[in-house]
């Protein structure tokens, strides 16, 4: 591989005669210097190597750093590989037999520093863009003045705009800390760093504002306020984003409840367990895919969504037919009976799958992140937000635009009238409860991606879900949406000040007080339905 690279580089040299690979002669000289054994010469050799741009440079300097570079008795410079093999330093060719009495090249601290700087600078010109990016960031952090020359050269040659900007920032960082740089250079550096606008840049600017000459200081102070403002905006946006993400999780968990509790008025304490069943359905489907069809792994989540809906909806039908049906009009008893159901479901799952957390993997499109104007956005969160809004819209459509939805609304508004119109109210009850449960199951598919899949999964969402529904106003899906997003964002904004747990406590206290003030939630239904 490296030889192929060398060949390509050599060809490139031949074509453009660029200084990149004017190398072999330089490398030879450098190796001679290194072989001399005198520290100052070795240091010079390292510097020469670093400038040479030879493809072998990195291997040689790394070997030097690790103490694997040796000088044989015949003055050849060799590299010791793994398990005692040897290779020629200049060419990388493996040696058939061990060289005569090789002596490792000794290092002192000066040389070590030179080696580190050379390695950092070297990767600045690596052919791999990711490596160059990393190197530029490393230089930015180390602010090593010796890298300046290489950096200038790398900037001149860099073709990717993003990396060139990073290198420019690294250069600015070096100049700003460099006593030798002129004020003009420093002010220019301040401007460049001001555009970077993150905590690192802020620290550098603060340091410059503390010590530089008056003009630099002024420029730095101006830049600091600009950066701080930008950072504040950015952190606010980040909070909003995290809040949206948390809010959409809350929405997912609560939306099924908005049907069963909000629309039908059934207190279903086993709602959390429906979410858990959805998550375990995902787990089972992934396990099946792992053992039978590994190629389908990425399809397990889309496949799990209808399956989770079905499984949870069937369990919902069983609960409604078996228990809740007999308790209509007795909400407190319904609460207790469904709590009993939740205990039984938890223990069933615990007996079947064990009490420990189960691993649900993330498909490839859920992994990773991208950068949006300084905001880091992970695909996992993005998908969950998109998904929860999709589920919400589907539900709205189902309720507002289908005949089934019409029947549900008719039955909840006036049961006897609906019955007189020929609607089978008991069937509608069952189907509506199945719909709510099924949606909880679908939520479980999404939550399996961000939470531990354990028998207790549902328990952690039950209080939150009820709070969301009650806060939003019972019987009002839009209220649930607003309330979930509000609570999610409020939670994330409280966290920096109060910490995660205290933030949550404050929010609960706020909700308790809010319910006192508006017992029917943010968007209360008006009219006769309220008294029902």
């Amino acid at each position, binding site marked *: 591989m490296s030889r192929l690279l060398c060949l390509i580089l050599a060809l490139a040299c031949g074509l453009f005669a660029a200084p990149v690979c004017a190398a072999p002669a330089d490398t030879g000289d450098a190796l001679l210097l290194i072989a001399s054994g005198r520290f100052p010469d070795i240091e010079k050799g390292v510097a020469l190597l670093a400038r040479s741009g030879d493809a072998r440079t990195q291997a040689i300097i790394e070997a030097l750093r690790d103490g694997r570079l040796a000088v044989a008795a015949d003055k050849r410079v060799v590299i010791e590989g793994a398990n005692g093999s040897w290779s020629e330093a200049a060419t990388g060719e493996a040696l058939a037999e061990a060289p005569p009495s090789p002596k490792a090249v000794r290092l002192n601290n000066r040389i070590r520093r030179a080696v580190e700087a050379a390695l950092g600078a070297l990767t600045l010109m690596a052919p791999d863009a990711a490596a160059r990016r990393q190197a530029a960031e490393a230089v930015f952090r180390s602010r090593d003045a010796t890298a300046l020359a290489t950096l200038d050269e790398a900037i001149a040659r860099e073709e990717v705009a993003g990396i060139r900007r990073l290198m420019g920032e690294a250069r600015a960082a070096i100049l700003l800390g460099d006593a030798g740089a002129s004020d003009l250079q420093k002010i220019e550096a301040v401007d460049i760093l001001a555009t970077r606008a993150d905590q690192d840049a802020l620290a550098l600017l603060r340091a410059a504002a503390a010590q530089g000459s008056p003009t630099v200081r002024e420029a730095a102070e101006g830049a600091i306020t600009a950066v701080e403002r930008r950072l504040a905006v950015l952190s606010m946006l980040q909070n909003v984003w995290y809040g949206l993400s948390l809010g959409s999780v809350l929405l997912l968990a609560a939306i099924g409840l908005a049907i069963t509790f909000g629309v039908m008025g059934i207190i279903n304490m086993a709602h959390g367990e429906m979410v858990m069943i959805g998550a375990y359905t995902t787990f089972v489907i992934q396990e099946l895919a792992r053992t039978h069809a590994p190629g389908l792994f990425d399809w397990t989540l889309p496949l799990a969504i209808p399956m989770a809906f079905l499984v949870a909806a069937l369990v919902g039908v069983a609960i409604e037919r078996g228990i809740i049906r007999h308790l209509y009009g007795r909400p407190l008893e319904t609460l207790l009976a469904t709590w*009993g159901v939740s205990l039984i479901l938890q223990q069933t799952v615990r007996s079947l799958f064990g009490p420990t957390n189960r691993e649900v993997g993330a498909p490839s499109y859920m992994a990773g992140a991208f950068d949006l104007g300084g905001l880091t956005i992970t695909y996992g969160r993005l998908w969950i937000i998109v998904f929860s809004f999709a589920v919400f819209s589907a539900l709205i459509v189902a309720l507002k635009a289908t005949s089934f939805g019409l029947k549900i609304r008719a039955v909840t508004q006036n049961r006897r009238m609906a019955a007189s119109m020929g609607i089978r109210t008991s069937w509608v009850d069952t189907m509506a409860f199945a719909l709510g449960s099924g949606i909880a199951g679908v939520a479980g598919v999404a939550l399996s991606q961000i939470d531990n899949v354990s028998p207790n999964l549902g*328990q952690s969402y039950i209080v939150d879900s009820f709070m969301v529904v009650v806060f939003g106003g019972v019987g009002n899906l839009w209220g649930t949406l607003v309330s979930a997003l509000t609570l999610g964002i409020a939670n994330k904004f409280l966290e920096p000040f109060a910490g995660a747990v205290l933030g949550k*406590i404050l929010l609960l206290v706020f909700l308790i007080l809010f319910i006192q003030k508006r017992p029917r939630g943010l968007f209360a239904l008006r009219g006769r339905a309220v008294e029902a």
Partner: protein
Amino acid sequence: MTRRPILLAMLDGKGAIFLGVLAALAVLVPLSNLFLPETSPLHVPTYAVSLLGKYLSYALLALALDLVWGYCGILSLGHGAFFALGGYAMGMYLMRQIGPRGVYGHPVLPDFMVFLNWQELPWYWSGFDIFPFAALMVLAVPGLLALVFGWLAFRSRVTGVYLSIITQAMTFALMLAFFRNDMGLGGNNGLTDFKDILGFSVQAQGTRLALFVATVIALALGYGVARYMVTSTYGKVLIAIRDAESRTRFLGYRVEHYKLVAFTVSAMMAGVAGALYVPQVGIINPSEFSPANSIEAVVWVAVGGRGTLVGAALGAVVVNMAKSWLTGALPELWLFALGALFIVVTLYLPKGIVGTLAERREKRKATATAKTAGIAAEAAE
């Protein structure tokens, strides 16, 4: 209509049996523990005395819950919080009694504070080394919380399911708060490793018996208070509120005041129950606040029979005995059994054990009187 003396009115048949059983327990259990040889089948070992004491403190909690749920229609899913607060007040007293005998040997600070590098006792710990103050706090802290919470909730007419949900949120919030180390109450681990209560070692046989008897007395007193409340005129209004809140309000009663009194008294009873629970169990930690605990207490009341007081106490003891036995013998089955209990009781036994028995007796009495009336009528012909 002449009014019967209040004490007689309070003491119906069930109540007499209940108090009789309590009195017998208070006398016989210590006697058996102290004087019967260990080989005797009637000997009650000391650990069993504490276990029984634990059940009876649960019974007091159930009694408190029945007062608000059975007679006032307030289904509180947060009574475990009052129980735990009373327990924490007692636990703080017991922690202060440890003094310099902790693992770190600090003269004032409890071990967990030394461990967390606290320099001095937080202000809310002061006074807890004095028993009367701690005892007062056992009543005051849950009582005050219930007063404030109830005042807010009842004033704005939060009722039914909504009230249940916010009481659950309350205990959930408290659980999260007590889990925090910064709270200064032991965080995760809670308060434990107690040594003395009122100068007597909590491990000693005599102390355990005394705690047991104290629990029996507290339960009897709690029953007395609750029974007095529900048989008085006040109690009649309470029942009216349970059955028709709006109508009672329109009749001119300040419904929220009645509810608030019942809720606060009930919370204080729960606090006492917690305070008696802690020294007998030897630990109090934040999981006592978990919503599941509170709702489990509700099922004790439901099993025994809501609105009967005696039934609540009976339910607590029966369910907890079953729990101790099942979690020992078949731990897998306990949650199935508890879940099934919730469902069966609400579906098939809505009046609970005591309520169902009472109903059956009433029916028998009714048929008997009908029969005698029939015979009398025949004789008259």
